[in-house]
């Protein structure tokens, strides 16, 4: 068989106009495109902020000043402890969600027993459950962890279960034909096949964990929640928006981190290889 080693370029190639190529190659870079778009958006925001005035929108420099103030008055430390509680809840949702998802995907019986509750909770508005959680757990760590857990876990369970069910039956037949036991088929065929699904579930779960964390804090209006509400009531917009930006950045970076982790974990995956 001929192994294609076609390295020649296209037959027809337009001559690059000299002097413009650096701009073209720069325009092809992702970071450059982002820089252009974000600078533009920031400029638009700044102009609007000047027009409507500080009562409605603080300027960019005011927001940066707000961020510095947040650091000085200890708000960020309070936020960090809220984040730690979120991480605990999120980690718990992974530790519980993945095995449950695998069990539900692999066993009809488990799916029959648990599927009803999982799907029921999935479509229930979890916000409605918050008062109950406060009654049960109080205002402490257990409450916050349980909210984050509930916000994240169902995506992880259902996605993992879907991944396990999605395994290519032909690959399973291959495993049988080549003498792999049930357990080895599970370890070498089913689980790797479900992995991208599980990770997708974890990514959606993470976004929801952030949302759950904020909501849990706002509901009890203590610690971090108290800070957020206080800033809103006092109309301290520079600090409020700075807080918003920091939380958004944290969520974005952790999502990007998960994406990088997925890429590293599943180098075969087509969806992540080219991006």
């Amino acid at each position: 068989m001929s192994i294609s080693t076609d390295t020649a370029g296209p037959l027809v190639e337009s001559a690059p106009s000299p002097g413009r190529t650096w701009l073209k190659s720069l325009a092809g870079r992702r970071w450059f495109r982002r820089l252009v778009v974000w600078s533009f958006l920031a400029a638009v925001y700044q102009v609007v902020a000047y027009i409507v005035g500080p009562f409605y929108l603080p300027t960019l420099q005011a927001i940066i000043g707000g961020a510095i103030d947040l650091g000085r008055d200890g708000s960020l430390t309070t936020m960090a402890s809220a984040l730690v509680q979120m991480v605990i809840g999120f980690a718990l949702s992974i530790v519980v969600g993945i095995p449950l998802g695998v069990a539900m995907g692999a066993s009809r019986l488990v799916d029959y027993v648990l599927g009803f509750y999982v799907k029921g909770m999935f479509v229930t508005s979890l916000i409605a459950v918050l008062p109950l959680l406060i009654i049960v757990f109080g205002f402490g760590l257990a409450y916050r962890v349980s909210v984050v857990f509930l916000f994240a876990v169902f995506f992880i369970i259902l996605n993992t279960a879907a991944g396990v069910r999605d395994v290519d039956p032909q690959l399973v037949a291959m495993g049988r034909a080549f003498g792999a036991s049930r357990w080895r088929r599970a370890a070498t065929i089913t689980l790797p096949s479900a992995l991208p699904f599980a990770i997708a579930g974890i990514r959606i779960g993470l976004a929801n964990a952030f949302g759950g964390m904020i909501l849990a804090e706002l509901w009890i209006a203590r610690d971090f929640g108290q800070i957020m509400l206080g800033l809103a009531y006092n109309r301290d917009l520079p600090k409020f928006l700075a807080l918003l930006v920091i939380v958004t950045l944290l969520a974005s970076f952790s999502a990007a981190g998960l994406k990088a982790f997925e890429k590293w974990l599943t180098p075969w995956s087509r969806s992540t290889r080219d991006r």
Partner: protein
Amino acid sequence: MPEPNHTPTPSDGSAFLEVRNVNKTFTHARNKSARMQALKDVSFTMKPGTFLSIVGPSGCGKSTLLRLIDGLQTADSGEILIGGRPVRGPGLDRGLVFQSPNLLPWRTAIGNVGFGLESLGIRGAEKTKRAKALLDTVGLADFADFYPSQLSGGMQQRVGLARALAIDPAMLLMDEPFAAVDAQTKLVLQEELERIWLLDEKSVVFITHDVDEAIFLSDVVLVMSKSPGEIIDTVTVDFPRPRNFDIRGSAEFAALVRRLLDALRHTRPAGAFE
């Protein structure tokens, strides 16, 4: 290794593979009264070291027959014996090559070739050594660390062949392995397969709908009719080996093609679920 014998003989006790009066009927998943007889009273025997092809129209049950021989499915009635022992399920004495390569996407070429070896308890350096040797045999020595998605269809099929050969089975079962590769690659793969087969002349059951392919590769060609699949003709091919491209132009080759096509032409039209 028994003496190579490229001609079929009727059941005389020395048969390696014996298929006896095998029937298989599929029932529609929802409509239980809708049935389709895939195989009807199929019988044949095969001596060890024979390259046997089964040709038939699509949906004639030839792939089903192969899965029965591999033990992935069971027959409704009849018996399949390998070396005198009935097939009870898949075993490492048979190496299966699928129509779509069915490689594990998360394993590199060499990892896929090693899959069956792990079932034999061969791991570590010994596994790597054997898998490498097999990749070399199929001409993919330089692609050991490539993932299937980075390989062409023909290359993936070579990996599938190497995986089946790696467990050193007594018998190779091939289910239309070249059906999905382009015509040029197919010709190359056919010649490669013959070269590899001549290394140790394993018993091969090769499923195809390509008459030229069956004649080029085989010692014996069985012709199956359309559903229900029955064996309607047995053709012996005795071109000397190794065969080369030129035999395809010979009058004998043309006569065999003609005979097989004629047999296929007279098979009944497609009967789906009745």
